């Protein structure tokens, strides 16, 4: 077979993709999948002042926002396992999310109105997360106050774990939940990201 190496290389060269050909084909694939209703999860990586954010949406709405600290590959794999492996990047489905996040990080938007798909949170954690948008832009609330909002004043630790596992950070504002003594507390995107968001909103 070695004697044919030059021939095989020639065949490979003559069938090389044109520059940009695959990029175009992949965009076309995502559009066609969307059109045919078989794009179960679309995603995109958005640059932001708190680092690249992975945003993923089902047909129902935005289902996941993830910091790089969560490892985007691992996040995509877990979306494949929990929702569907029919996942592609590059469709227009995330256009509105990207635009609203851009406006938020530019200081021109105080709340989000993209549809949300809550399927990755359940039980009391989900109840807690549903209450977080009640904490307005520029405000903060203590874990204890959020526990009261959620109807379980003693479940302060559960509020902490709900925030720590928020599938939709930034959009669902767990960064506005802080300690009773006014210190920041932890954040799934790292304390620096939490500080950056609170500083942005205080401006």
């Amino acid at each position, binding site marked *: 077979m070695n*004697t*044919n190496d030059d021939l095989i290389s020639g*065949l490979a060269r*003559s*069938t090389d993709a044109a520059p940009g050909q695959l990029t175009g084909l*992949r965009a076309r694939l995502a559009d066609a999948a969307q059109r045919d209703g078989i794009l179960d999860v679309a995603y995109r990586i958005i640059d932001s002042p708190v680092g690249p954010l992975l945003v993923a949406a089902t047909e129902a709405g935005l289902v996941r926002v993830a910091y790089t600290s969560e490892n985007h590959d691992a996040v*995509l794999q877990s979306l494949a396992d929990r929702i569907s492996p029919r996942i592609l990047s590059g469709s227009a489905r995330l256009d509105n999310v990207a635009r609203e996040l851009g406006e938020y990080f530019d200081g021109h938007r105080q709340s989000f109105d993209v549809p949300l798909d809550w399927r990755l949170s359940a039980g009391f954690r989900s109840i807690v997360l549903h209450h977080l948008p009640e904490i307005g832009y520029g405000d903060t609330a203590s874990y204890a106050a959020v526990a009261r909002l959620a109807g379980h004043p003693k479940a302060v630790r559960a509020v902490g774990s709900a925030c720590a596992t928020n599938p939709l950070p930034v959009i669902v504002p767990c960064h506005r939940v802080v300690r009773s003594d006014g210190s920041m507390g932890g954040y799934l995107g790292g304390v620096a990201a939490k500080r950056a968001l609170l500083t942005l909103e205080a401006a």
Partner: protein
Amino acid sequence: MVSKQPFEAVVSAHGPTVLRVCRAVLGPVDADDAWSETFLSALKAYPELPAGANIEAWLVTIAHRKAIDVTRARARRAIPAGDLPEIAGTTHAESDDDLADALARLPDKQKHAVAYLYLAGLPYGDVAGVLGGSADAARRAAADGIATLRRTYPGVAARKAAAPKAAASKGETR
């Protein structure tokens, strides 16, 4: 449950090879459509693909079927005198151009065997699976195809020796 990777990763890993195979089997003009239809079909069926399946062989099988569809459609709309005029003159180097032309003119079975074996890198058994014959038949088809291409593309050594064309096309069979 063995987890299945996101389809995006499948496209990244195998998209270039499948495009190469489509280009080899159909030429550059129809390759885009075949590639698109292959991955759209694959995405649809992906959740049902058994975990641990050979994804590349699966994709090449789908691409093979799409290519046959395209070839049939092309035959239906072909003008009687036209022997694949759209294939020629679309690649870069001259000798590679001739090679692409020669590949396009191979009988389908040989062309498919060469593409799946040498460009997709599938083993004989998988190539046979795609083509629907025995591994021996796949091996013969690939060998015959390569021998024909070799006559078009004498290679560096043969060119250095500047062998007369007639002699080269008569003698070289491997």
